[in-house]
């Protein structure tokens, strides 16, 4: 049984994952779990069991039960999500292997023979203690970041921005008079910047936050139509390779998704929007497609 959207699907058995087709060329899949909805101890043990020994060790090293749970769910979400796509009939989440690229970005270490090309699946995860998300694309680098909308910060928005953000972004935030709105815009900007850096895969120092600006491009009727990135270091041809989506998830979190545009659409043509499909899941238990519902509100993209 294939998983389509507009469905709430319960797993066949306690250890099965409903299979799904890979996202299409211009499509992004986003899967998320809310740790507060996963309480069953034996289910959590089942999750622990699909992790590698190393991952288990990392989970157990987290200091505090809540942190251990979200760390466990993060690895579980990655493994079960990728396993759903049944690449080369590989359906066991436990058998997946991972490695890091040269800059430390995690990727799948496909266990195929040398002469077969690795599948073009890309993923990226982000987690807060209250939400864990995994984005999947085909043929395109991806970076995602989720943050609680009302997350507290210890410094003021502007002192934080002055330290880390670009001049244009500081001006943008400084021009917002309502402090609550300013804080929300700050969080949105943070997630977008994080998603970009994670998509680039070069690590925090590979694209220092001050060296690029994320801004909302306005269309002819002064509505924000597009999120773009300008970089001091990279020429425009390269920065126009990236596109962004910004969502509000479950009324509680902002999620930013940054993906590579494909060669065909990057030649200065009108921006072809990517299709985004979002599922809320409890792996091995239930999957719920939430695109088009109140759980997913598109802010931009």
């Amino acid at each position, binding site marked *: 049984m294939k998983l389509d959207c507009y469905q709430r699907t319960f797993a066949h058995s306690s250890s099965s994952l409903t299979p799904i087709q890979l996202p299409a060329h211009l499509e992004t899949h986003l899967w998320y779990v809310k740790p507060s909805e996963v309480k069953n101890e034996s289910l959590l043990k089942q999750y622990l069991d699909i992790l590698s020994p190393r991952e288990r060790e990392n989970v157990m*090293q*987290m*200091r*505090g039960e*809540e*942190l251990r749970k979200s760390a466990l769910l993060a690895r579980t979400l990655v493994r079960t999500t990728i396993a759903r796509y049944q690449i080369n009939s590989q359906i066991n989440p436990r058998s997946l292997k991972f490695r890091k690229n040269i800059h430390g970005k995690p990727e799948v270490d496909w266990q195929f023979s040398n002469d077969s090309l690795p599948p073009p699946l890309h993923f990226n995860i982000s*987690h*807060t*203690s209250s939400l864990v998300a995994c984005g999947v694309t085909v043929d395109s680098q991806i970076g995602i970041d989720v*943050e609680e909308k009302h*997350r507290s*910060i*210890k*410094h003021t928005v502007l*002192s*934080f921005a002055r*330290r*880390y953000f670009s001049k244009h972004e500081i001006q943008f935030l400084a021009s917002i008079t309502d402090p609550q709105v300013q804080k929300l815009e700050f969080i949105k900007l*943070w997630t977008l910047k*994080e998603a970009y850096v994670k998509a680039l895969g070069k*690590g*925090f*120092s590979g694209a*220092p936050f001050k060296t690029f600006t994320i801004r909302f491009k306005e269309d002819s009727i002064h509505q924000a139509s597009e999120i773009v990135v300008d970089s001091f270091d990279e020429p425009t041809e390269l920065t126009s390779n990236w596109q962004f989506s910004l969502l509000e998830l479950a009324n509680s979190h902002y999620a930013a998704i940054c993906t590579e545009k494909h060669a065909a659409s990057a030649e200065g043509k009108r921006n072809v929007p990517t299709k985004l499909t979002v599922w809320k899941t409890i792996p091995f238990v239930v999957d719920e497609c939430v695109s088009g519902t109140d759980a997913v509100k598109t802010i931009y993209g």
Partner: protein
Amino acid sequence: IYAPAPNSHSLYLDKFVFTNCQNTYIHSFTHSSYSPPHSLHKFADPFSSLLNNNKKIKMASFAASPVSFSAVSCTVKPNQVSNLRRASLSFSGKSSPSRRIPALRFRVACSAKPETVCKVVDIVRKQLALPDDRDVSGESTFATLGADSLDTVEIVMGLEEEFGISVEEESAQSITTVQDAADLIEKLLEKK
């Protein structure tokens, strides 16, 4: 580390030093005589649970009777079980069957001051709003304490403000533990 002179007995003294942010304690004990260095490793086990519990260990002065030594006043790196810092001490003197004559000299490897580590711990505790009973020490990693990327940059900001330094992105990325942060701070303070 000093090579024993001829006609001397070498006493290898293991010194386990650790600090919590209230006090620095030195727990030392002597190991009787002539075993080669590698056998000293067996001391790690009986104390591993102590070290793990991060409890305060009283200053213990063990001495083969006439041996006395003064407390280490130099700052030393906090320890963890898997990464014990040992100061090997040896002393030489006239030997007699039942007495060892002291002439202690020793060197201890130093790193960031405990006060620096403590300040970092304070900043981390505040940033992450940790409960009082959550142990934080030099070898705690930010990740395991639950710091995400936003927390980490705020911690870096906090450290810059507290110490009046400026941290490059590259350096910030390489900090994974409290100790790393303290060491970097001291390095930057030296350059000022």
